[in-house]
Each structure stands twice: as structure tokens, then as C-alpha cells.
């Protein structure tokens, strides 16, 4: 079966051929159509049989739609709120007020940056305590104003640093989870790229959790698991598979409520389309949530998390 590089090369050749045929007027339409059909079949085969490690690489793809840009496309307007009101403003975890489908909403999202300078400034999406504290602050704003909350997750994990530890990154994440679980407003989380451990679940304790097809959500990075459990960094692909971090697998496990399809080749092939698909899915789930009476919505949320993972337990044998 073809690998990614072969498919890319084929795509280019076919595109060149079509241009030639169209420009020169040579009558090869039928042959070309067959060729394209064959190519699409190859693409489908390849992308429908992606290994979890392939998905990890797609989730991390440098051109993957993400962060501020994607959120701005998903929403109709976005007004950023900044700062934790305690001394810091994290560029890796951002949020504010937005409009979606004619209504005001609150949004929170990881931002990884596109230029090297920006990536440095936001530590490639690894948030600081002040980021999670800003998130809690914004949650309180949306709670006061009765706005639904949308979160968009894309982080390798919370930032591991001396100052982050001193400022209680663990407690900041715990407060974020606790605050989010207690919100009276509807909450929808979308995992866009990497959903890396505690840094991810801080924003993912929502009424609904959606995942882009090639997004990942995991307790530890495949590299981390490989180093700890396999004692071998090269085992990352195996670790990825073993961790069950893919969207389809997490849908099966009931962790994700819906997998939002990506175009063949991954979200970066069609950022606009990806944004539209995310928008459509979020609006649909939000609509469903807004139909529910408050009590029922909160009961469902509680029981979702209270019972999380119980399928992984069994009666004691010994």
C-alpha cells in the first residue's frame, strides 16, 4: 500500500497532467478521470488506515489549522480577554467573548503560534499557571453573563518549569477542572490537535467532548510512554497505538461524543472546510444542550464524569 510521500507525489503528477491537458486541449479526459479515481482510492485506503502514530504526526502537523486563527474562523466574531488579574497573561491559553450562530458565547483555547517567535512566546501551547487562572477568570465571566462556553484544545501538556511549579500549576489545573464542572452554562469541548494530559483535561471537562478525526487525547505523550514503559524512545509509534489516543478509539470508549471528519490528507488540506465542520458540530451539540433543562443538563454532566472509566473496572476475582 502507498505511503504518504508516494501519494503526495502522485497528487502532484496528476495535477500537472490535468493542467497540461486543459491548457493544450489534448483529448485525454477519460484517461485522466480514471487516473484520478485510482488516486482517490489510494488516498482513501491510506488515510482510512492511518496508524495512531500517523495521527499523532497529523495532529502535530505544522500547517494544521489551530489556535486563534481557527477559532476566529469557527466563530463569527471574537473579542479577546486577557490576563489573570494577578500578575500574568499567558499567550498559550487564551480566550474571550465570541459570537456563534447569532448568539454570544465564551471561548477558551490553546494557542501554539505559527512563527518561531510566536511559538517561543506561547511555548508551543504549553500553558502556565497564569493561563489556567485566566481560564478560571473567564469561566466566571461567562457564568455571570450566562454564556455557553466553548473550549478548543490543542496542547502537548501544561508547561513543566520551576516557576510553574512554584505557582502551583497542579492546583491551577485542578481549579480549572473544578470550576468548569460547576458551571451552570452549557459547555462544549473540541480537541483540535493534541490533547495532552492534565493541560488538556483542564479545559475538557465539558458536557460534550468532540474530536477532530486526527486529533489525539492522551494521558501521556507517546514519547513519554515509550521512555518510561518501553525504556526506548523509538517505541513511540507502538506506545501511540497502545495508549488508545485516537478519535475513533475514544469515540468507542465513550470519551468522545463525536468525531468531526477531516478531509483526506488531514485538516491542513482544507482549513476553511475544517473550521466549517467544527462550527457545524459545535452548533449542533450546543443546540441540543440548550434544549435541556438546567437540572437535567447538570445531572447528565455529573453522571458523565462520576461514572467515567467504569467500563474499565470489573468485580474483584480474588
Amino acid at each position, binding site marked *: 500500500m502507498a505511503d504518504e510521500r508516494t501519494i503526495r507525489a502522485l497528487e502532484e503528477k496528476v495535477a500537472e497532467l490535468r493542467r497540461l491537458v486543459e491548457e493544450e486541449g489534448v483529448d485525454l479526459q477519460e484517461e485522466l478521470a480514471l487516473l484520478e479515481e485510482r488516486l482517490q482510492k489510494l488516498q482513501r485506503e491510506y488515510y482510512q488506515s492511518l496508524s495512531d502514530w500517523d495521527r499523532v504526526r497529523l495532529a502535530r502537523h505544522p500547517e494544521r489549522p489551530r489556535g486563534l486563527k481557527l477559532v476566529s474562523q469557527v466563530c463569527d466574531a471574537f473579542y479577546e480577554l486577557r490576563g489573570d488579574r494577578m500578575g500574568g497573561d499567558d499567550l498559550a491559553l487564551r480566550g474571550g467573548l465570541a459570537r456563534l450562530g447569532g448568539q454570544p458565547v465564551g471561548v477558551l483555547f490553546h494557542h501554539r503560534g505559527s512563527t518561531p517567535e510566536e511559538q517561543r512566546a506561547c511555548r508551543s501551547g504549553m500553558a502556565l499557571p497564569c493561563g489556567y487562572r485566566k481560564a478560571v477568570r473567564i469561566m466566571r465571566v461567562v457564568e455571570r453573563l450566562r454564556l455557553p462556553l466553548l473550549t478548543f484544545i490543542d496542547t502537548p501538556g501544561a508547561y513543566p518549569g*520551576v516557576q510553574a511549579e512554584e505557582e502551583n500549576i497542579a492546583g491551577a489545573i485542578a481549579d480549572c477542572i473544578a470550576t468548569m464542572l460547576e458551571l451552570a452554562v452549557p459547555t462544549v469541548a473540541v480537541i483540535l490537535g493534541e490533547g495532552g494530559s492534565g493541560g488538556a483535561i483542564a479545559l475538557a471537562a465539558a458536557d460534550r467532548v468532540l474530536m477532530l478525526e486526527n486529533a489525539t487525547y492522551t494521558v501521556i505523550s507517546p514519547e513519554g510512554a515509550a521512555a518510561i514503559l518501553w525504556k526506548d524512545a523509538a517505541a513511540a509509534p507502538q506506545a501511540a497505538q497502545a495508549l488508545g489516543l485516537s478519535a475513533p478509539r475514544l469515540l468507542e470508549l465513550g470519551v468522545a461524543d463525536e468525531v468531526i471528519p477531516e478531509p483526506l490528507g488531514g485538516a491542513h488540506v482544507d482549513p476553511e472546510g475544517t473550521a466549517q465542520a467544527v462550527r457545524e458540530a459545535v452548533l449542533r451539540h450546543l443546540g441540543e444542550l440548550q434544549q435541556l433543562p438546567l437540572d437535567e443538563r447538570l445531572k447528565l454532566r455529573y453522571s458523565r464524569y462520576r461514572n467515567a472509566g467504569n467500563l474499565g473496572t470489573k468485580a474483584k476475582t480474588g
Partner: protein
Amino acid sequence: MPIRKDSKDRYVEVELRRGEEPLWMRCGACGELVFRRRLRENNYICPRCGAYFFLTAQERIAALVDPDTFQELTLPLESDDPLKFSDRKPYADRLREARESTELSDAVVVGRGKIGGHEVVLAVMDFRFIGGSMGVVVGEQLAHAMEQAAEARIPFVLVVASGGARVQEGVLSLLQMAKTVAARGRLARAGVPYIAVLTYPSTGGVMASIASLADVTLAEQGALIGFAGPRVIQQTTGERLPPGFQRARYALEHGLVDGVVSREGLREELIQVLDVLSGVPHGG
């Protein structure tokens, strides 16, 4: 699983205490060979140098609760290995071995007992069981314990000894963070006190969820308290770690805990807290 030695904070490498325990144990800090009974009588503190040995959940419970008052409430649950996880060794085998060597169903023991005459629901993690990691069983036991405390309207005491989430259960173990936090929310709404005792180690996903949300948080002397491990921090940032970093006293200075308590003083300290809170929660 030996842990790093730190003579100042008195945590030491120890032999994994498996199955049949030897009559004599060697202190990793000072090298002294100590008669095991003597060690037990001394709260597993080296009589020569004062280093702390790991405590099993049962030993910790014995050291904290009033004699003959502990009634175990651990649910009869085991991990079903939901991902059929295997690294160099199948997770199922690791589970079996941990169960055999610890005689526990997973990394926590839950029960009801008295401390200084005060009824409590107690949950004690056991580091021997896959590093005290929180997977689906630990999460369920903790949530269940909090529900018991809320229902009985008596304080909940959690003794943490955990490196974090159980990697081998993937996102299902990550979700135990949200699960335990949700259960803690119910406990809080019931007005029931929650006291956390952080011991070596209290890190990762456990610290980033239930262990950070107590009403009163005590740290045992020398406890390691944090989110990321020191190695990860150094590898990611290249930062030099300050002396005492992530240890109990450091945590106190940075406002992360209410007090640092010696192992010998822990029971008395808990009694003080329970005394001052006596009558809380208020009636039904």
C-alpha cells in the same frame, strides 16, 4: 521502584517491600540494618538517621486511626485492563503481580474509622501498587469514599502517595481527574470537611485534581509535591532546580500547603484539625 535519595529531606531508596518481608531492612540513607519489628514500632523511620521508609496503606492506616476502629469499605473492584495495554510486559501481568505482592486490589484502601475519637472516612494510597497511580479503580474508590463521607456526614481524609495517572489505562485514567473533582464538588456542597495529607510522592494527575482541592492540606515531612517530575522539567526547560524544589517545606513557603508535619506528629495534627472542626458538617 526505588526513589531518589535526599539525605536532607530524609527520603531514601528502599527495597521494594514485596511478599515475604525480610527480618532486617537496610536504610538507604545511612546503611544501617534495622530489625523490621523495630522499624515498624518506629513508624518506619530509621532509628539511626531518621530517614522515612515508604509506608504501605495498611501501615499508614494503623499509624493514624484509633486501634480497632477501622472498617474497610474498599469496593470489590479490579481493573479490567480496558485498553488491553501491553508494553514490554502486558499490563494484565503487572496488575496480577501488584495484586499478589501487595494483597491489594489496586492502589488505594478505603475505610471508615476514628481518629482521636472523630469518625472519618479514610482513603490511603499505596505507592507499591504501580506507583500509587490513579486508574479507573482508584478513581472509583476515591469517588465512592467521598460519597460515603457525604452520606454519613463525617470528614473525609485522603492520604496521597501517587506518581500520577495510570499510564496503562490511557485517557480513562486521565478522566479520573474529572471524576474525583466532580465527587469532591458534591462533598463540598454537603459541607463535609476534606483533609488531604500529601506524602512522598504527590505528583502528576492526582496532584492536578483531587489532591489540590482539600479544605486543609498537610504535607508529611519530605513529601514530594508537584505536577511535572524534576527530570521532565530539566529536559524541557534546561532549568537548574533550586535546592529543596518540590519538597514539603518548599511547598509550604510557596503557599501550597497549610503545614508540614513529621510522620510521628501526623496523627496528633489530624486530631487537632478534627477537634477544631468538631461539629462540622452541621446536622443533616
